[in-house]
């Protein structure tokens, strides 16, 4: 599957200072797939995301996106290729309006189709439309998450990485969020879902990887992993 993969990571090692967080990661995402990376807090999920988006440098291994090696590129160049990372904690621009936040999502990519994409995102998220002139910092947590995803979608991603999107949302909003992810994927976009929310992630994912202490301890079809209670207990604390 490696030749057809949209994202192909091999032997990735990365960390901070003396600490090596990722100790040899192999991961693929094919076009149109939803792939979940699951694991509890502190096992290296955020470091993996940051390495893929160029914020943290890979110390070893390769990251291929859409056929090209990207492990030495800077974040803006990786965004230009269509690999978009919606970060944990939203990282929206609190001092700017909702519309301005969305506009900056197309700073590097799809700039020419900005207005059309913004309209499309407003129709997906009517709440954002209602609040389009409001400062993003004044939105509720759920609205901020929608805005972060909307900003990511403005770049017309080939692959969107969603880092803990359900964190801090009410159960009802989480339900809505996962329905939305499935819908985005239905439009043909590949999704890499990095989550602690195991049950719902496995429901919508095609495949899943279980991350523990900087290594994948298991990977396979999401349905198989969901059906293995011992596995869930051992690595996901359920």
């Amino acid at each position, binding site marked *: 599957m490696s030749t057809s993969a949209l994202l192909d990571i091999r032997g990735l090692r990365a960390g901070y200072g003396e600490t090596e967080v990722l100790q040899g990661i192999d991961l693929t995402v094919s076009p149109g797939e939803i792939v979940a990376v699951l694991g509890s807090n502190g096992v290296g999920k955020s470091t993996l995301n940051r390495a893929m*988006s160029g*914020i943290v440098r890979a110390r070893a291994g390769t990251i291929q996106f859409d056929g090209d090696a990207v492990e030495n590129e*800077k*974040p*803006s160049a990786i*965004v*230009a290729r269509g690999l*978009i*990372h*919606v*970060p944990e904690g*939203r*990282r*929206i*621009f*609190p*001092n*700017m309006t909702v519309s*301005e936040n969305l*506009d*900056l*999502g197309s*700073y*590097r*990519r799809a*700039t020419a189709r900005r207005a059309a994409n913004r309209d499309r995102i407003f129709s997906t998220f009517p709440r954002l439309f209602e609040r389009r002139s409001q400062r993003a910092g004044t939105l509720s947590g759920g609205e901020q998450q929608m805005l972060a995803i909307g*900003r990511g979608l403005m*770049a017309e991603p080939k692959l969107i990485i969603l880092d803990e999107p359900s964190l801090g949302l009410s159960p009802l909003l989480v339900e809505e969020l996962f329905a939305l992810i499935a819908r985005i994927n239905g439009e043909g976009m590949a999704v890499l879902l990095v989550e602690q929310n195991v049950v719902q992630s496995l429901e919508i994912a095609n495949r899943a990887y279980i991350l523990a202490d900087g290594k994948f301890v298991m990977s396979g079809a999401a349905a198989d992993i969901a059906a293995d209670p011992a596995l869930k207990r051992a690595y996901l604390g359920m």
Partner: protein
Amino acid sequence: MFTPAILIAAIFNGLLTGAVYALVALGLTLVYGVLHIINFAHGALLSAALFAAFFAFHQFGLDPYLAAFLLAPAFFACGYAFQRFVIGPASHGDDRNMLLVTLGIAIVIENALLYAFHADTRTIDVPYAFQSIDLGFTFLAVPRLVGFGAVFVVALLLWLIMAWTDTGKAIRAVAKERLGAELAGIDVAHIYAVTFGLGTACVAIAACLLIPTYYVNPSVGNAFVLIAFTIVVLGGMGSVPGALIGGLVTGVVESLSGLFLGDSLGQIGIFLIFILVLLVRPNGLFGAKA
């Protein structure tokens, strides 16, 4: 005491001087707001720009107000290059190091100017230097009126850039949320350099507005930057309206305290107001709450 006419004249003159202070402060606060460092090279760059305006007139007969249209882009490019190729790389990703590199650049520029042009103080002689407009109760100096108008235009242009262009929005985004900006595809090193370039262009324009009635020597910029720094803190670190209004207030305070305390003590008023404002509002007039 003084008649109202004298007081009003002092206030007007203060506003006109304050506008140029505001412009120097604007450059400083812009860099602080985005890069989160005090640009120690600001004063040296102002001295360099004053020399550039001086020689543009002296060697080529170029009027300072026209020279601004050349020097602003030239100094923008200088500032961009300094940040992109010297300050950024030399700081190795640690913002505190940038501060020290700007200090180093200041020392190099100032000594290069001293080496090249010696410590002599120079002035230029333009025909409109002493022209004034009669308002009936007072006279307003033409160069200062031009300066006031120009600062107003520059502030408006800057606001338009910040509000309406992608680069301006990116600058505001990087200022508040650097990681989010990087993940949106904004090249932070480029935006830092653009911001530094804008700050340096402000200084170049200020130099062109000052030189018709002021003088230049290798350390002349420092006096202005001390006042500009006061204004930046007074207005709120990183706040553009704070720098503009703080600059005008400072000009008026200086002018009025000069009137009441004598010319040589004019600047005491600035620092008194500075201390008073910070006692009441520790984050400055327009500063965000800590």
